[in-house]
């Protein structure tokens, strides 16, 4: 299924009429109390992308992920039968963290403190002098966090009983994702950064092209032309809480400089040899995952909140085969670094935007029609916070 076809794609005017116009409150973009509501209403009960199965290829392979907004350290483990499960990285005896390494491979996890030992399935296998606890071993398994895999990506959910499976949550987008390289990735290039910005301020930068000709005057040149001086997308689409855009195709882009052209050609030839074929598509997935498929390459960009005005960005470019030749290594190095060159340019403007907002003097934001995707995210967040407050009120104020 074409990545764009699963969204109902509309010309900008129709999309704007659908979602409405007018300014929105700036408060959700800086206020600590509001962030706490979003944390509870959204992040503590949404499916969040935290890794890829290629990072844990064999039974016993594990990765550790720190999820700061939940004050959680997670141990994501490949089980004996290939299953993937996340556990809190904490011994059930008295909570000692089990693993310090970022990744590795083990057959069991033993606590450094009193040697309680757990299997790959989280079950307590042994504990010295366990009789004196007068407890049942089956009650002492590692604490699980809901874990599901879609298109090779590992998603976790802190809600112990999520209302939807990850596949239900993404609906028809799930099938489209399965057809992109991430679904059969065996390796990736990754870079990360921390930014002084609310997670929506950070994500929003990648939801509009209005800034293209100012911030990316040089690197963004191929995406703009006399017919479309702002490089605006040609359509916008929505699918539940998720959204998409269709990038404009420049009919007469500037010539690609020689070494970049050599790299693009070699990369394209190798992708063809690997049978990598997928449509150009853009997935802005709720709450904070952005997947860009620009054949033959694909990257994901996660905007993980660390606090009301701090976010960690993680970009991964996924590869469907091992880099087994010099040309593959070269084409991948160049493709990844050229994306990094472009994305590096956004940071000062995003942080300046946050600094200008955080005292509340700018009490509302003006979104133009081509900032429709920002409005959609704003509304999706708003509706979830409202629903959460209603639930809390119905429960008599209990949290």
């Amino acid at each position, binding site marked *: 299924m074409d990545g764009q076809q699963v969204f109902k794609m509309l010309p900008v005017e129709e999309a704007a009429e659908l979602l409405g116009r007018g300014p929105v409150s700036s408060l959700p973009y800086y206020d600590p109390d509001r962030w706490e509501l979003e944390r509870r209403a959204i992040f503590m009960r949404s499916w969040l992308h935290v890794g890829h199965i290629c990072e844990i290829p064999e039974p016993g392979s594990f990765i550790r992920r720190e999820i700061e907004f939940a004050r959680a350290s997670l141990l994501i483990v490949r089980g004996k039968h290939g299953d993937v499960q996340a556990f809190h990285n904490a011994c059930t005896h008295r909570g000692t963290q089990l693993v310090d390494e970022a990744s590795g491979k083990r057959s069991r996890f033993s606590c450094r403190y009193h040697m309680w030992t757990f299997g790959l399935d989280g079950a307590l296998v042994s504990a010295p002098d366990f009789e004196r606890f007068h407890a049942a071993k089956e009650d002492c398994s590692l604490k699980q966090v809901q874990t599901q895999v879609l298109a090779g990506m590992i998603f976790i959910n802190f809600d112990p009983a999520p209302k939807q499976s990850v596949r239900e949550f993404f609906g028809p987008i799930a099938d489209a994702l399965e057809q992109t390289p991430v679904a059969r990735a065996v*390796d*990736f*290039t*990754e*870079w*990360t*950064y921390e*930014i002084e910005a609310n997670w929506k301020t950070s994500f929003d930068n990648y939801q509009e092209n209005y800034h293209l000709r100012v911030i990316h005057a*040089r*690197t963004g040149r191929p995406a703009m032309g006399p017919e479309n001086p702002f490089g605006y997308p040609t359509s916008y689409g929505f699918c539940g809480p998720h959204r998409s855009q269709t990038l404009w195709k420049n009919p007469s882009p500037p010539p690609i*400089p*020689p*070494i*970049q052209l*050599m*790299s693009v050609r*070699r990369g394209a030839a190798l992708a063809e040899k690997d049978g990598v074929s997928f449509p150009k598509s853009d997935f802005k997935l709720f709450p904070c995952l952005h997947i860009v498929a620009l054949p033959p390459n694909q990257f994901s960009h996660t905007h993980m909140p660390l606090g009301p005005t701090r976010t960690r960005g993680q*970009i991964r470019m996924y*590869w469907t085969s*091992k*880099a*087994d*030749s*010099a*040309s*593959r*290594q*070269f084409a*991948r*190095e*160049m493709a*990844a*670094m*050229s994306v*990094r*060159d472009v*994305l*590096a*340019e956004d*940071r*000062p403007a995003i942080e300046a935007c946050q600094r200008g907002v955080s005292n509340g003097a700018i009490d509302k934001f003006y979104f133009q029609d081509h900032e429709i995707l920002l409005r959609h995210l704003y509304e999706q967040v708003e509706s979830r916070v409202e629903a959460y407050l209603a639930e809390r009120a119905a429960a008599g104020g209990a949290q």
Partner: protein
Amino acid sequence: MSLTERQLPAGFDALEPFVETWAISGTAARAQRRNESSPEERIAFYEAFKDLAERALTQLDEKPLERLDDQERRLRDLLLSFAHVALAVELQGDAEPEHAKLRQELRITHAPAD
């Protein structure tokens, strides 16, 4: 140049002067070297390599990576640094010094050619 002195496979003598500075292992280290380099260094490396890059890749592709000898591995590492330098020269031009500061915040944590 005698065989014993040669750092790179035959036919790439013009690149010998760049081995010490640019034959670097690891994507993050190559990105760092780009950031620390001078415009003159980048131009000299780019000009020396641009007409040899196709041939270098084609020649190295004849062997699986694990069978590359030391000279070929150095040429491969040079090529990978060349990818970074080509972006500086072809894409960033005069803006490269300012751009280097922005890239510094984006830490490379994993790459297939590490």
